[in-house]
């Protein structure tokens, strides 16, 4: 696999930022390096000392041996104890470093321009960067772990290499050859695996579709009614076999490549034991013989591990590099005006808009004005761009062409924070979050004035309900994070979302298609709640039902071309155009009844 980033600058930046985030870690790694470099040599010199004593000293050998072994035990035990303890604490702190980076990522994503959120290619492109902080083994923490341990590994490896040369440089050469070939095998296999990646991803996606379909309980009803069981099982089985076939090919390649490493393993073994036996035959002491055997085996293991670790750092470093690039990328376009106006007038001036990476214009040369203090209803069929209209007003998307003016100033000249402050919006897909009721309304963890929170709840008719909780405003919502959390009915959740918009006290309020899943009585309540919310403000109410339009000053009927009709309810009914038709269609059964009962 080729890397398309520079390893050294990545490492430098990683080390710099990680140490800035966690000073203590440098100290830990330093001590670890000292201990862990020495420790592997203990096992190497032990046979030399012990057997050496036996070989040389004949008289006092037993006593010397006991003393030597006691001394050895004390030193080795202390070394191993400190090495292992430090190793673990270093790993724990590496996790802390990862989570600090994760916090930065969260901030970045929550504050970048909204257009990226709905841009699938943006996520695809940055997926690796976003996942770089996700687990202990890979990405940021994976690299962190390895580079904390590598200095010690490399130092003791160098020491062992020098030591090995005392026996014979040929052994060292053979080991280097074996390590190089082993790494080549692993790289080649990795490359092959990488070349199969697309094929494998595709096969896995197909398999996962069936996994999802069989495991997702919401498919249960339709599978039973339409008797799709057998068919899905057979397809699923076939997809599993396709995935296995690719995995088999990869395993095969690794197996075939493995023969190269086997050959060098054989060679290394022959050289090593050949030289050792030859030297021992010619007088090398048994203590040295044993020592060198231990040394060479440790060196080989050590070098292979360093090879793997370096390859790991290089591969996973890609994600670290992506992560840093992602953090550096400028993802906010905004202006300099920060003052929030008291009233809001919105003008669409020849606006053309299409979503990033799509081909269809949602608006084309669209002109429209929402006057300050006006209550506007926007109605229209699905796909007419009503929700897009809301997103454009709120500054979540910028027009592709043309301008949007707020109080005569181009929307792009406002800072994002200022722009967002202007709107109290209840989105179609609003969310109640697992925070306290108060936090759900105020949207901040700071303690705010309870009276105004209660006022907002009062206006939507939730005050009594909240007062009934023992915890009052501090009652947790939802059961996801707190099993004592509470949940509201659909209508009450909607009211809570409205209270949030109300509490914000922004100069303009927007409510986007709120009543999809509500029954008739709850729906009426919501309409009334909204009326209270909009007093004295610019207000926009979006719906594909017409029922809500009556308390609005103006109605705009959207179709796929933009605004089709515009005026008061009476004017539009007079006109007998599309609005009239829709009104008739939606209302006709009711109307018929009324005529009959009247």
């Amino acid at each position, binding site marked *: 696999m080729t890397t398309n980033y520079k390893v050294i600058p990545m490492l430098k930046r990683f080390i710099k930022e990680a140490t800035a985030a966690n000073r203590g870690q440098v100290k830990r790694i330093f001590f670890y390096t000292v201990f862990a470099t020495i420790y592997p040599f203990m096992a190497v010199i032990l046979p030399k000392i012990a057997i050496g004593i036996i070989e040389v000293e004949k008289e006092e050998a037993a006593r010397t041996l006991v003393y030597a*072994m006691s001394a050895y035990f004390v030193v080795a035990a202390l070394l191993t104890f400190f090495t292992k303890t430090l190793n673990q604490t270093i790993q724990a702190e590496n996790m802390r470093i990862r989570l600090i980076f994760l916090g930065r990522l969260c*901030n970045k994503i*929550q504050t970048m321009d909204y257009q990226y959120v709905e841009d699938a290619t943006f996520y695809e492109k940055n997926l690796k960067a976003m996942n770089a902080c996700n687990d202990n083994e890979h990405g940021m923490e994976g690299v962190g772990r390895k580079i904390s341990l590598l200095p010690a590994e490399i130092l003791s490896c160098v020491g062992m290499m020098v030591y090995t040369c005392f026996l014979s440089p040929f052994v060292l050469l053979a080991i280097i050859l074996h390590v190089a070939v082993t790494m080549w095998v692993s790289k080649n296999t990795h490359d092959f695996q990488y070349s199969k990646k697309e094929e494998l991803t595709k096969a896995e996606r197909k398999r996962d579709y069936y996994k999802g379909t069989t495991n997702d309980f919401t498919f249960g009803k339709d599978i039973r009614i339409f008797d799709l069981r057998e068919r899905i*099982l057979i397809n699923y089985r076939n997809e599993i076999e396709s995935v296995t076939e690719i995995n088999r090919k990869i395993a095969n390649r690794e197996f075939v490549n493995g023969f190269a490493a086997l050959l060098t393993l054989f060679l290394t*073994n022959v050289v090593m034991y050949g030289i050792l036996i030859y030297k021992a035959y010619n007088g090398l002491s048994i203590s040295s013989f044993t020592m060198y055997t231990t040394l060479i085996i440790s060196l080989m293991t050590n070098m292979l591990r360093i090879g793997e670790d370096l390859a790991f750092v290089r591969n996973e470093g890609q994600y670290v590099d992506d992560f840093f690039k992602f953090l550096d990328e400028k993802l906010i376009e905004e202006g300099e005006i920060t003052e929030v106006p008291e009233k809001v007038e919105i003008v669409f001036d020849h606006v053309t808009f299409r979503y990033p990476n799509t081909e269809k214009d949602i608006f084309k040369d669209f002109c429209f004005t929402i006057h300050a203090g006006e209550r506007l209803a926007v109605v229209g069929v699905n796909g007419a761009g009503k929700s897009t209209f809301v997103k454009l007003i709120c500054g979540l998307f910028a027009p592709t062409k043309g301008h949007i003016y707020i109080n005569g100033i181009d929307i792009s000249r406002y800072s994002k924070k200022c722009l967002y402050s202007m709107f109290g919006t209840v989105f179609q897909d609003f969310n109640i979050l697992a925070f306290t009721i108060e936090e759900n309304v105020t949207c901040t*963890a700071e303690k705010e004035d309870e009276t105004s929170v209660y006022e907002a709840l009062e206006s939507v008719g939730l005050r009594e309900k909240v007062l009934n909780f023992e915890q009052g405003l501090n009652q947790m919502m939802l059961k996801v994070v707190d099993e004592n959390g509470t949940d509201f009915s659909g209508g009450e959740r909607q009211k809570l979302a409205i209270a949030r918009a109300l509490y914000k006290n922004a100069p303009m309020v927007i409510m986007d298609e709120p009543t999809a899943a*509500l029954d008739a009585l709850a729906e009426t309540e919501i309409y009334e709640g909204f009326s209270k919310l909009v007093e004295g403000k610019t207000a926009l109410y979006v719906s594909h039902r017409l029922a809500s339009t009556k308390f609005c000053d103006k109605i705009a009927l959207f179709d796929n071309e933009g605004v089709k009709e515009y005026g008061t309810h009476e004017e539009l009914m007079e006109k007998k155009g599309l609005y009239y038709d829709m009104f008739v269609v939606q*209302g006709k059964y*009711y109307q018929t009844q009324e005529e009959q009962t009247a």
Partner: protein
Amino acid sequence: MKNILIFLKMAWKTSPAYILVVILSALISSAQIILNIILPKLLIDELIGEKAVARLILFGSAIVWNNVLVKLLQNVIKRYTDAKKKWLSDTMVWQLGEKIMNLEYSYLENPYYLDLKERAVFAIHNQNAIVGFVTTLVNALSGILTLVGLVAIMATLGPILLITIVIASMLILFCYKSSSTRIVKTMAEIIPINRRFGYYFDIALGKQVQKEIRLYEMEHMITGRILEDASATCDEFYAAYRDIGMGIGAMGAVCEFVSAFTYAYVGIRTITDFLGKKLSLGSLGMYVSSAVTFADTISTVGSEIVNLMQQASYLEPYEEFMSLEEETKSDDGVIFEGPVETVEFRKVTFTYPKAEKSVLNNISFEIKRGQKISIVGLNGAGKSTLVKLICRMYKPDSGEILINGRNILEYDYHSYMEEISAIFQDYRLFNFTIEENVSCKSVGSDVQRVGKLLEEVGIAEKIKELPHGIKSQFGKEYDEDGIELSGGQGQKIAIARALYKDASMVILDEPASALDPIAEAEIYEKFNSLVEDKTAIYISHRMSSSVFCDKILIIDGGTISDFDTHDNLMKKTDSLYYKLFMSQAENYKLDDASDTIKNASYLF
């Protein structure tokens, strides 16, 4: 222990070859370890003894071949197991999928089983538990085998070394146990933190809440919560890792003691015969290796046994799920020969599992063949529940549902389901072609009928525009070239699917909720011709839809408050139906358009 046997049996049933191969690999690695201890002894003894060249070469090559051949065998095994272990996991999940589809539907709405399923899949897929389980089990056995071999070697030296080793092993296991208890304790402590963390993290990085995060400046609140939890987790981990590190360090110290002691003890025995028969330097090496390997292996075996317990506990949800009773499979009922002539609810009461209040309470009514019935009620009144009972997704607590005079539970499930078709408010389409989504057959679908239905639900135009027409693959999850449909379009296809099925009764639960008003009205108007002479049950929040039904069933507070025609119901001005109807009608009052309205109402 019982669990371990159950899971081993499960894996064995799925792939006996895999199990045999991993056992073989365990045997090979044990053998290699033992040989690596014995062969150097022979070599060293030869080096300090006769130094016969032929034997030196023989022992040298034995060591080399032991290393190389074992590696070769391991490669052969790895080639097989690499592909097979993923296959094994996939197949276990496949079996789970089969199970889910065979269960009585009521399980699927029970949060307990949803959670159980999640845990089961998580264990297999994310924790890789079944493969881990087999591997750990085999490693543990291989470790034990190695220990036995080492004991046999050390026993030749007499009891002192063995006793020391046993004491050291107990110390090691003690350190190991306290470390692993520490991990378990920490893990238990961070579960709630982790769950919270995951929730807020998903909010911060997911797409769902991003609009509100921006407009309400929620990022401080959310990131604040994430960092709070992260820091709490890290503090827990730091303390735990430090303790665990000390545990591992202590184990290391014990191992060093074993090395030093063995060298001292066996060393003295090579110097003098004071403690027993004098030993050679080769034997010294062999005993030292044995002792050191024993100390290493004992901690491996300990950890593998703990792992094994853990893996087995991961697999418990899977096992529990797989042993749920399958009910829909029973073929012993009466074959239902249709068509549906009558549907009768007789004093039916129903309570959802674990709910305190019954949803339906003593409900009785009757529907005749060909009738179109609308069910009306507030949210949560039990409208969809009633439908699920008819579809045999749940069983009534008491009372019975009779179709053609016989309790529906007495019919053979498959023949019964053949006569019932439905579209649910949470309908799902499959990543098949559009044609297959309507016909639900991969071969032999009636193309003309599919085309006609798509025409009638008003989506034929849109489909003609697609490059592959009705052969277009639906959905991007399976095939990246698949097409995506809007909610309204999907719903139309689901309606066509419900009507394609040759059943004599059709249930439509909120079938038009995602359609715009014009399309919705079109569907309503065609409704009678669409369902033809089938018996139909219709649920909708749009009160207007009930006007064209033969009768309306009003459910209020779990009981039937009315079952009558629209005209009759509208005469009772204090009824729920009247209130619901008028609250929506209110919004559509026309002052000057009544003529047109009247005409419009007679269009069908």
